[in-house]
């Protein structure tokens, strides 16, 4: 069981690092897209307000929650491997 605990701790740290990097990257991409959108559009509100509004929408979006699959997919993968190795 010590090995399981070690796997979970190391896995959690590594996956958290990936999760944080991916979140920051995805948010930066969204910000760039919003800025491009603002420059193309009517520019009827200041850039700061437009970006803030857009990122708030992004924070609530499904796309952002999908990044949580960084944690889910490895657990599913391990379960599938355990089944295939031991019970298939």
């Amino acid at each position, binding site marked *: 069981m010590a090995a*399981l605990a070690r*796997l979970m701790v190391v896995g959690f740290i590594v996956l958290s690092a990936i999760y944080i990097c991916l979140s920051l990257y995805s948010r930066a991409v969204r910000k760039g897209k919003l800025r491009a959108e603002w420059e193309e559009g009517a520019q009827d509100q200041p850039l700061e307000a437009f970006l803030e509004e857009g990122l708030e929408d992004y924070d609530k979006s499904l796309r952002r929650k999908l990044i949580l699959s960084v944690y889910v997919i490895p657990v599913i993968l391990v379960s599938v491997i355990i089944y295939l190795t*031991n019970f298939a």
Partner: protein
Amino acid sequence: MLGILRWTFWISIVAIIASFFHYTLPQTDIVRISDTYESRENPTKYTLFWGPADIDASGAELPRDVFFIQTRRVDGDVMVYRNEDTGWGWPPYFKFDTSNLQAEAGDLKSTADAPRYVAVKHYGWRNEFMSIFPNAISVRLVAGPDGPKGIPWLNIIIIVLFLAVVYAIWVRWRRFRIARIDPTVEAIEDDLAGATGAVSGWLGSLRKK
């Protein structure tokens, strides 16, 4: 000289990565199981090539019983597999059914006169000098010495994914170097060349006087 060093470096890197995959990824052998046994092992050297050891309260490694499967391959060579749990450790096969596998292997025993051929999926290396054995993952009865072994989809997927990641990193690094490092280095070189020219010009002007 620098070229030789660079080639040696990259060939070593490729060899290390290739041997890592060769050790870790599953392979299938068609064999005839001749016998199975269990032996008390307490590997002190090359523990990397054995399963996780049981540890007593003081942290010392305890000797343990390890299952082995003795086989003869289709080409006539013998091959001995160990049969150990990988548990939650590396490599990530998550194998817990060692005793079941040993029962299956024992059931598939056959003689040279009436051979039954078995596909043994395993990872790892046999090395007589280091006394290390590949670890059997599964056994499966097959029709004859020709298999079928099956297409190693898992290996194909993992290696393709790995090469894709390496290529992605390499492309980004190259782009970064062309955009940022090369111009800077060139600017420094130009500066140096300019400075050298200035110095020799100044020396030349001194000589003229």
